[in-house]
């Protein structure tokens, strides 16, 4: 057994030990620290495999016996998992002890992390599916332990129902692959014909896509992610949906052999729908965690765009750009994991500090919570795709990939690339609008509620977790070029180096993005201009409202800031609004305003599906007579039916 195997095993054992420790009374903080140490070990192991390029442990096999191992792709996801999990666990040390059901949640956190690691390390179908199901069930258990109200229960129920229905696709895809002996062997499925290939590709797209939150399979995500405790929301939105993308990449890029062109186009379409839809419905949310959950949908959409572009390049035989687009998607996986974990931790901190996350009742927190607020600002700017932070680096890469799809390909594909390019640009601008709103309502302006005026920075551990993640956003934004060449090496069919290593991103066919120089230039120029501006002679004055006294009740709200967009897209968003005016003797006593934007897909897709399901259940209930003899007849019928099928040879 080599050193690396030992490191990885020791890491997993340490995480498990931390989980046990957390369950013991009084050991919660120590247990979480031990878990963080274990995740750091695992991450180091993953990083070593990623950079070393050699696989660890078993290789993929289609047999039943359990096997574990790591290859560079698993190593990358493991490293990203550790990068987000360690700060999250450090955060949880100060966050969790005051939460309800803290010890159980602490232990379940370790189990959840091990399930995530297990999916990444599984090398056969049975352990993959086992860890996959655990990964779905464990956060649900943790949410139910931590929150006991009815609304949360129904959210968790929707989560389990949708992910299990969709998750059937994962089972079908993997069992079919194992049946053909195609795990880790791309030629096996190609030999089985395009029919089997199409079934596997579609099943994996639906199965992993449900878990990743692709629209229209996303409905569980904005329900389940916001109700979890902050550190679990961070891990779910940051990593769980990424592990689903890991499965998608395994199947669609590595195991189904030559990828058909329709799959690339389908991923572009799904990516476009998810990114635009996710950000649009994020914009009209007024609760911070729900808004962040919708943004996760947007970001998996962006990743899907990168993956789709990669498949289209591979289809055209353009290996270099296929590898670059693949690396773009992977870089966005890492970036989104980092800034989304940061933002969810920030939301948890704010909720603790002021007692609620309704966007219209926050405000002024940057001045009062400089550490948490500053980190939250960095995360917001990163997710909005602003240079020189990490979100821009990966979005730039995806934009370049789509633009080059439009440059090089036959007409239909080129136009798809152009449309996706415009869609991604719109997505980026919508995310900017959304996070300008979030930053403004949460961090800036006057405190919109008494608690906000008294808010103070959280304890050291929570602060440290958030600041570490914010530092990663900045570091990855300044030197993405150090990571990208390694990621291009993970693309299927790549041998040798595709890109040279620079600090910035130097690609063929672009004007290059020297991120470090640009970041430094912006910092130096801004500082210089502040110097030129000199000592400020500034008069303090009230805000200008045409000479009227400033009335806080007239301040701008979340709904107000997005109103122009809601009006423009009224046909699509279908906002509901109701104004009730209460009069007494001609005098207006009170005015109440309610408005919300319903989820279009919920109304158009899920509600009819649920109604049909209930009707079908009512029909099926007639089979349940309660009479033992009827059930015996069912059994007899089943046995006879199976015997007939076996006799005719239909069962193979």
């Amino acid at each position, binding site marked *: 057994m080599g050193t690396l195997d030992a490191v990885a095993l020791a890491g997993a054992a340490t995480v498990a030990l931390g989980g046990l420790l957390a369950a013991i009374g009084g050991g919660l903080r120590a247990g979480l620290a031990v878990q963080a140490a274990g995740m750091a070990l695992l991450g180091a192991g993953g990083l070593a495999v990623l950079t070393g390029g050699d696989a660890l442990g078993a290789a993929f096999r289609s047999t039943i016996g359990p096997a574990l191992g790591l290859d560079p792709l698993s190593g990358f996801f493991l490293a990203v998992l550790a990068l987000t999990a360690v700060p999250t666990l450090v955060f949880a040390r100060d966050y969790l002890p005051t939460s309800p059901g803290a010890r159980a949640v602490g232990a379940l956190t370790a189990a959840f992390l091990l399930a995530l690691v297990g999916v990444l390390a599984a090398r056969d179908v049975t352990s993959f599916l086992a860890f996959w199901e655990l990964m779905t069930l464990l956060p649900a258990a943790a949410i139910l332990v931590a929150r006991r109200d009815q609304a949360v229960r129904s959210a968790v129920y929707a989560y389990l129902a949708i992910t299990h229905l969709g998750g059937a696709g994962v089972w079908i895809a993997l069992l079919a692959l194992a049946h053909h002996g195609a795990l880790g062997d791309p030629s096996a499925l190609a030999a089985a014909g395009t029919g089997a290939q199409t079934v596997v590709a579609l099943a994996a797209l639906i199965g992993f896509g449900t878990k990743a939150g692709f629209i229209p399979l996303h409905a569980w995500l904005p329900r389940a992610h916001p109700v979890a405790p902050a550190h679990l929301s961070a891990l779910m939105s940051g990593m769980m949906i990424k592990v689903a993308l890991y499965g998608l990449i395994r199947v669609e890029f590595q195991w189904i052999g030559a990828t058909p062109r329709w799959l690339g186009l389908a991923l572009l379409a799904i990516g476009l729908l998810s990114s635009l839809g996710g950000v649009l419905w994020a914009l009209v949310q007024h609760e911070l965690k729900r808004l962040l959950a919708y943004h996760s949908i947007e970001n998996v959409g962006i990743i899907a765009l990168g993956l789709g572009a990669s498949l289209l390049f591979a289809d055209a035989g353009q290996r270099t750009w296929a590898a670059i687009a693949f690396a773009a998607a992977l870089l966005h996986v890492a970036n989104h994991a980092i800034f989304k974990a940061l933002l969810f931790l920030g939301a948890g901190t704010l909720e603790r500090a002021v007692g609620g996350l309704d966007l219209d009742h926050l405000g002024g927190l940057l001045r009062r919570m400089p550490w948490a607020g500053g980190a939250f600002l960095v995360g917001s700017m990163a997710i909005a795709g602003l240079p020189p932070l990490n979100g821009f680096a990966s979005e730039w890469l995806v934009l370049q990939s789509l633009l080059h799809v439009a440059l090089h390909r036959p007409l239909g594909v080129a136009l798809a690339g*152009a449309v996706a390019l415009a869609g991604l640009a719109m997505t980026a601008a919508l995310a900017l609008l959304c996070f300008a709103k979030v930053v403004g309502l949460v961090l800036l302006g006057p405190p919109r509620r008494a608690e906000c005026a008294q808010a103070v920075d959280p304890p050291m551990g929570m602060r440290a977790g958030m600041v570490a993640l914010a530092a990663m956003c900045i570091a990855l934004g300044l030197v993405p070029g150090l990571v990208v060449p390694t990621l291009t090496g993970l693309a299927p069919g790549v041998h040798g180096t595709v890109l040279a290593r620079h600090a910035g991103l130097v690609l063929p066919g672009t004007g290059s993005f020297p991120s470090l120089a640009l970041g430094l230039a912006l910092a130096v120029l801004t500082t210089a201009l502040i110097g030129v501006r000199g000592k400020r002679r500034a*008069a303090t*004055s009230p805000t200008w409202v045409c000479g009227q006294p400033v009335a806080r009740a007239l301040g701008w709200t979340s709904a107000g800031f997005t109103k122009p967009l809601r009006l423009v897209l009224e046909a699509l968003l279908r906002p509901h609004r109701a104004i009730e005016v209460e009069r007494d003797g001609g005098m207006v006593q009170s005015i109440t305003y309610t408005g919300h934007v319903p989820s279009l897909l919920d109304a158009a897709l899920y509600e009819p599906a649920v109604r049909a399901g209930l009707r079908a259940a009512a029909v099926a209930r007639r089979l349940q007579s309660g009479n033992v003899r009827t059930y015996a007849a069912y059994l007899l019928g089943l046995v006879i039916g199976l015997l007939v099928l076996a006799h005719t040879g239909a069962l193979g």
Partner: protein
Amino acid sequence: MNTLAALVQIAGVALAPLLPGSIQALKARLQGRRGPSAVQPYRTLRRLWHKSAVDPEGTSVIYWIAPPLVAACMLATLAIVPVGGHAGPFGLGHDALVLVGLLALARFALAAAAWDTGNGFSLMAAARELMISVFGEALLVLALLLAALPAHSTDLRAMSVAAASGHIWSAPAHWCGALAFMLVILLETGRQPIDNPDTHLELTMIHEGPLLEYGGRDLAFLQWAAGARHWVMLILGAELFLPHWGGFAASLGLLLAGVTFLCGSLALIETTQAKLRILRVPALLGVGCAIALAGAGMWVGGVGT
């Protein structure tokens, strides 16, 4: 040549305010007024430089840092955009999509500053600007795509050189791109029919709105940044879409002619066009996107190339 180009780019820092000034002067002439002279923006900047700033109550570091940050973004874009197909070795690359990111950063800084003041008029304008930019950014990348098609690159220098090769002027795709980019220019420079640079009525402002609380040197930075935005957009329009040929000197001369032509066009459009209803602007930009997509289809389909 690159050194000379660098000098022109640096001169752009000083020359930028001349563009909005000359457009205003030209427009006044077209409308039969005498109007302010073309150097009026410089007088405004000098006046602002000697005035004291204003700090609305309760503002934070965001309000304080936004004006220098916006100006720094525009300085960086000036370094990225080539003149006459060449650019100085500023080390910031010459990528078209990086430019999009820098413009977005400036927009975010101003919107955040508007939130920091809590001024209703600033926020109204910021919300409108961000809403319009959703469609504007799609149009911008599509226009840039059309300029990148013949160059096979998003390097602005290569795109400029590709636009200089005569056969492209007969390609309908190129002129689709030019039309789309003209709309981008109208949007980014805040001109009619999208925005009205002359209005100082709070209810109708878009670009001017978030500047409302600023005074003194802060406002001077922001006014200069507005000038720099004219410079960057008009240079890009002339470099990527207007005919130019010959050596570097000839290219520079044609660039000057192109920018003058675009200034004249803006003045003419502003004289003849009324401002659109704000909710109609996305439709205008959407038509631009459709034209650009049609152009991309024609180019890839080989129409006229």
